């Protein structure tokens, strides 16, 4: 009966507010976690101080730097990456009508890996995000070009072309690693391949935020259009949806979003696959609800996964992709079992 009772709207609004508050609280707590103990009050005093709202901060310079320079940007980057991947995943699943679709479907992650690894072995480790971004867009462009050459870029052709590009890029990545990686670069590459937000600063947090601010609104206003895809292209077209235009707009927006996320955090798996499914299980498939809630849940999930990644085995850091997979894979199985019971 979702949305059909007068209470449906209020319930959705309450869920949005509750999750936003949970996200804010999670972020505050996550910043206090780490080798140096910092209180929530100190966290907010520091934030307000930097925003110019508290002129004189009682927090020491060192602790101020730990909050503002080290932990806060990383926490923001984690939330943004989680929100972006969850949103892109939900869009890809709806557009391709494929429940197994994730944001990396069209070769985006393998392309990014190839770009990143190439730069690492060439010694330009600092330029990895640029290489990853260009690599992901190149893979996507190539997949779409091949689909077009096969006789029109339909979703199925694009997915198939994406798979072949993906395989090719992975093979080349493996070759480069095998041939030229030394001990140090090997560890660097591996950590990137498994997904890591280690060392994220304000530039990374800013890029993630800007890409979300640009792409998310485009996707969110198309929620009704995505609903129309539930029974396929023909049915969507007969409901007055411009199928081709909507598809390419949304694909473009989610590819751009994924490209930035992959550049900042590497190919972090399972977030874009599991989060939309979990939210769907709770509130159903109507995208007006699904998309914003997925973003919030994705942000919270990623924030805690990254906090675990950096604190569990302190002082060593785990690549966050390992945490998301360790939590995400069993969660995915649980969701599958729930789906079987209700459908």
């Amino acid at each position, binding site marked *: *009966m979702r949305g*059909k009772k007068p209470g449906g709207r209020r319930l959705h609004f309450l869920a949005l507010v509750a999750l936003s508050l949970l996200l804010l609280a999670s972020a505050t707590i996550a910043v206090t976690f780490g080798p140096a103990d910092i209180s929530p009050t100190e966290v907010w005093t520091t934030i307000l101080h930097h925003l110019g709202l508290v002129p004189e901060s009682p927090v020491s310079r060192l602790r101020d730097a730990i909050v503002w320079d080290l932990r806060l940007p990383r926490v923001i980057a984690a939330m943004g990456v989680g929100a972006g991947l969850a949103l892109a995943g939900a869009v890809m699943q709806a557009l391709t*009508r494929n429940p197994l679709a994730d944001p990396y479907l069209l070769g985006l992650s393998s392309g990014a890996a190839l770009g990143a690894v190439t730069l690492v072995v060439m010694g330009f480790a600092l330029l990895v995000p640029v290489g990853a971004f260009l690599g992901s867009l190149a893979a996507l462009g190539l997949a779409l070009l091949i689909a077009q050459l096969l006789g029109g870029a339909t979703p199925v052709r694009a997915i198939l072309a994406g798979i072949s590009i993906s395989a090719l890029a992975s093979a080349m990545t493996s070759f480069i690693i095998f041939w030229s990686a030394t001990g140090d670069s090997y560890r660097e590459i591996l950590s990137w391949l498994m997904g890591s937000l280690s060392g994220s600063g304000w530039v990374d947090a800013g890029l993630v935020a800007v890409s979300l601010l640009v792409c998310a609104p485009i996707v969110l206003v198309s929620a*009704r*259009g995505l609903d*129309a895809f*539930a029974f396929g292209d023909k*049915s969507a077209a*007969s409901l*007055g949806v411009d199928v081709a235009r909507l598809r390419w707009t949304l694909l473009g927006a989610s590819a751009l979003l994924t490209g930035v996320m992959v550049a900042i955090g590497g190919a972090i798996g399972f977030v874009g696959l599991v989060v939309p499914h979990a939210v769907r299980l709770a509130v159903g498939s109507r995208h007006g609800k699904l998309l914003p809630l997925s973003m919030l849940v994705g942000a919270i999930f990623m924030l805690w996964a990254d906090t675990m990644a950096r604190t569990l085995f302190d002082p060593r850091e785990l690549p966050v992709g390992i945490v998301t997979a360790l939590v995400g894979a069993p969660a995915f199985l649980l969701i599958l079992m729930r789906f079987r019971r209700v459908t």
Partner: protein
Amino acid sequence: MEGLRVAGVNIRRGGRKIVADAKFSAPVGKVTGLVGPNGAGKSTLISAIVGIERPEAGELTFEGANLVAMGRRERAGICAYVEQSASTEERLSVADVVALGRIPHLPAWAVELGSDDETVVAGALEKVGMAGFAGRQFNTLSGGEQQRVHIARALAQEPKLLVLDEPTSHLDIRAQLQVLHLLDGLAKAGGTVLLALHDLNLALHFCDWLVVLDAGRVVAEGPPAEVLREDLLASVYGVHARLIEGPSGPVIAYEGTV
């Protein structure tokens, strides 16, 4: 009264002409059947009528209004479409599916339906006899129930013209009769119904008007009992058959292939 008018419609796909110079009309308040062998171009012609495909040439009008020149949303408010059997992997309640029919009437960014829309959705479910199913998951329904929900979704568009592509092909005979009775009732209430059908006896029984398509051309149009003559069944379908008078009208008795 003239409802849908199709004139001189050509549809080409990948260089091949699928529909050639199609011309017929579907009157208001009637159930019009579109019949013909597999590959005759029924689905393609229907795609063009509902705006999924653009005809290469020709006119498509409803009560004088030019469907081809219309905006997508405006057209979806006049003309609704039901597929053979449309399934989904999405988790949608019956009410959610019917609510899809309100899309042409809502602003694109609206998350929830207005109360007027909810009234339309409830009314549409009522009309197809599925009022008690609003909260059920669509995927748990039988084929016949799903098809009735699809018709309710089409009715929620508040269309003047309802176009269905073989809506009964996957259903058992009881569900087929239920769907066809439902369509008959909608036409009698003033709607215009056009449907592609395979079963000629059902066409004979339920359609008020019949259009026969063969190899992309309209080869006959008129009242079903006058159109489905033995010579037409032989030339279009390649079957020997006799029309015999049954207790509730004429029935086709098939005797073999030509």
